[in-house]
C-alpha cells in the first residue's frame, strides 16, 4: 500500500497557530489575498465595459447599409463599405508578405543559425515588437510615400507586414523548438535532405501552433490604425484593386468618424468599432481556446 505523506497546507497551518501575533498574521494574510483577488477583478472590468458599450452603441448602427454602402459626403449617411473592402485587401497582401518572411526567419533561427546569430535575430524581433507602430508608419512613409508623392495602399500593406513579421517569427520559432529532435533525426536517417525534413516533417508537426501565431498577427493587423495614417491615409471612396492610391480601413474609419462633428458619423464609428471588435475577438477566442484545450489535454 502506498504511504500517504502527511502534507499540511499553509491555510491549515495558520489555523493551528494560536498566539496573538499569529492570529494577526493570519488576518493580514487573508486581507492581502482578498486585495489580490480584487485587483484581478478590477483588471477585467474594462474588458466588460468596453465590450458592453461598444455593443450597446454599435448594434443599432451595424446594419446592412453600414456593410454595403460607400460613405456619402458631409455626414449624410452611407456606410463603411470602403473601409471594409480596404481592410479585406490590405491585410491579405500584408499577410502574403509577412507569413513567408516570418516563418522563414523562424526556421533560420530554430534550425540553421548558430547561437549568436539566432540571438541577434531574436533580439531584433523583440525590439521591432516594442517599436511604437506610428513610427513604423513614418518609416514606411519615408520609403514608399515620399518618393512617389502619393499616399498608397501598398505602403499601408507594407507597414502592416512589418508589424506582423516579428510576431509571426517569434511564435513560430517557439513552436519549432518544441518539435522533438528525434523526428528530425528519423527523417534525416532515411536520407531525406534537410530542406525536405524541415518543410514536410518539422513544419508540418508545428503547423497548428504556427497557424495560431499567424492568426493572432492578422487579428492585430486588423486593429492597427497608427501605421496606416501616413501610408494608406484612408479614403471616402471605394478602392478595389488600386494599391497605388489611398485606401480606407476599418480602424481608420472608426478614427475619422469618431472625430467628425456629426452624430450620424459618430454612430457609424460605433457600428464599425463593433464590427472590428467582433472580428478581432472572434479570431482571438477561436485561436486561444484551441491552444488552451491543447495545453490542458
Amino acid at each position, binding site marked *: 500500500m502506498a504511504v500517504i505523506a502527511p502534507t499540511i497546507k*499553509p*491555510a491549515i497551518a495558520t489555523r493551528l*497557530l494560536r498566539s496573538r501575533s499569529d492570529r494577526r498574521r493570519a488576518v493580514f*494574510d487573508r486581507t*492581502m*489575498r482578498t486585495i*489580490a*483577488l480584487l*485587483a*484581478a477583478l478590477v*483588471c*477585467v472590468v474594462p*474588458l466588460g*465595459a*468596453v465590450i458592453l*458599450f*461598444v455593443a450597446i*452603441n454599435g448594434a443599432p448602427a451595424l446594419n446592412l447599409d453600414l456593410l454595403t454602402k460607400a460613405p456619402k459626403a458631409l455626414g449624410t449617411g452611407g456606410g463603411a463599405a470602403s473601409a471594409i473592402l480596404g481592410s479585406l485587401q490590405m491585410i491579405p497582401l500584408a499577410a502574403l508578405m509577412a507569413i513567408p*518572411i516570418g516563418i522563414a*526567419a523562424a*526556421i533560420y*533561427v530554430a*534550425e*540553421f543559425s548558430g547561437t549568436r546569430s539566432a*540571438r*541577434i*535575430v531574436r533580439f531584433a524581433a523583440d525590439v521591432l515588437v*516594442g*517599436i*511604437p507602430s*506610428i*513610427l513604423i508608419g*513614418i*518609416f514606411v512613409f*519615408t*520609403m514608399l510615400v515620399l518618393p512617389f508623392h502619393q499616399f498608397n495602399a501598398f505602403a499601408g500593406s507594407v507597414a502592416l507586414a512589418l508589424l506582423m513579421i516579428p510576431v509571426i*517569427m517569434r511564435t513560430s520559432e*517557439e513552436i519549432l*523548438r518544441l518539435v522533438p*529532435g*528525434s523526428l528530425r*533525426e528519423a527523417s534525416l536517417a532515411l536520407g531525406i*535532405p*534537410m*530542406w525536405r525534413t524541415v518543410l514536410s516533417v518539422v513544419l508540418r508537426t508545428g503547423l497548428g501552433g504556427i497557424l495560431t501565431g499567424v492568426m493572432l498577427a492578422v*487579428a492585430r493587423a486588423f*486593429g*492597427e*490604425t*497608427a501605421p496606416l*495614417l501616413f501610408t494608406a491615409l484612408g479614403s471616402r471612396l471605394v478602392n478595389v484593386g488600386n494599391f497605388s492610391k489611398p485606401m480606407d480601413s476599418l*480602424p481608420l474609419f*472608426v478614427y475619422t468618424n469618431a472625430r467628425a462633428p456629426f452624430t450620424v458619423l*459618430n454612430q457609424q464609428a*460605433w457600428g464599425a*468599432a463593433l464590427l472590428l*471588435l467582433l472580428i478581432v*475577438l472572434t479570431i*482571438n477566442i477561436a485561436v*486561444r481556446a484551441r491552444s488552451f484545450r491543447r495545453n490542458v489535454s
Partner: protein
Amino acid sequence: MTTVQLPGRSLEGGSGGAADRLFRNGTRVAGSFLVIALIAIGVMLWLSSSQAFGTFGLGFVTGLTWDPVASIYGALPYVVGTILTSLIAVIVAAPIGVLTAIFLAELAPRRLSIPLTFMIELLAAIPSVVFGLWGVFVLGPFLGHTVEAWAVEHLGWIPIFAGPAYGIGLFTAGIILAIMIVPTIVSISREVISSVPASQREAMAALGATRWEIVTKAVLPYARSGIVGAIILGLGRALGETMAVTMVIGNGQDIPHGLFDQAQTIASKIATTFNEASVGIQTSSLIALGFILLVITIALNVVARLLVWRVAGPPGAR
C-alpha cells in the same frame, strides 16, 4: 559525414547539396531581413530628422514653442506630455497588474486563474482605436463627472487639481493607457513569478509562513528584477501608444500645469499634425519627435528584456 546535434541546435548537413544550401540561405535572408529592417528604421528616422536637429540642435528637445508660422520647433511640451501620461498609467497599472499576477500565479485555483488569464489576454487584443472611441464617449465623460469633478471641488486649491474638469486631457489619457498596459504587466510578471523555483516557496512554508508571507518573503524578492522589467515593458508600450491617447488627450500645446489639462504626447502630436505638415523643416521636426520616441522606447525595451531574462532566462534557452 553528417553530424546530427541535439534538438533545437543547427543540423550541419553535408548531404542534400545545392537544394539544402539554397534553402538555408533563403531562410538566412529572411532572418537578416528583421535585423536590416530594424537598422533601416533607425537610419531613416535619423536621416529624415537631421534637418530639424541640424537647425535647432539639442535645443529641439528643450524648446517650448511649436510654431509652424515662425518655423520654430521645440519638443518639450510633447516630451513632458508623453512622460506624464505614461507615469500616470504606470502608477495606476503597476500595483494592480503585479497584484493580479501574484493572484493568478500563486493564489488562485485553476478554475479561476484560467478564465481570468484568458480575459486579460482578450483585453490586450482590443484595438487601440476602439479604446479611443470608448474613451471619448464613455470613460472621459464618466471620469469628468465623477473623479475629476470631485477632485476639482475638494482639492482644487492644490494647483495640480485645479479645474476645469472636461474629462478630456492628461488624466483620462493616463487611465486609458493604464488599462492598455495592464495585460503586458500581468502576463510578463506572471511568467516571471511562475519561474521562481518551488523550493523557495517550500522552504518558507516549512517555516510556518502564511501564503502571503511566502509571496512577499520568498517569491517576490526572487522575481523582483523580472517584475521591474515587466513594468518597464508596460511603460514602453504606454510611451508609444497612439490612437487611444490621441482621441482622449485633447489638444494642449503647452506644458500641462494640472492633472486635468489638455495636452499632447509625442505620438498624438505626430498623429494629428503629420499629414497637414509641409514637407521640409516641419515634417522633419515631427520625424525628429518620432526619433526621440524611438530612442526612448528601444532603450527601455532593451533594459526591460535584460531584467526579465535575469529571472526567467533568455528565450529559447530551454
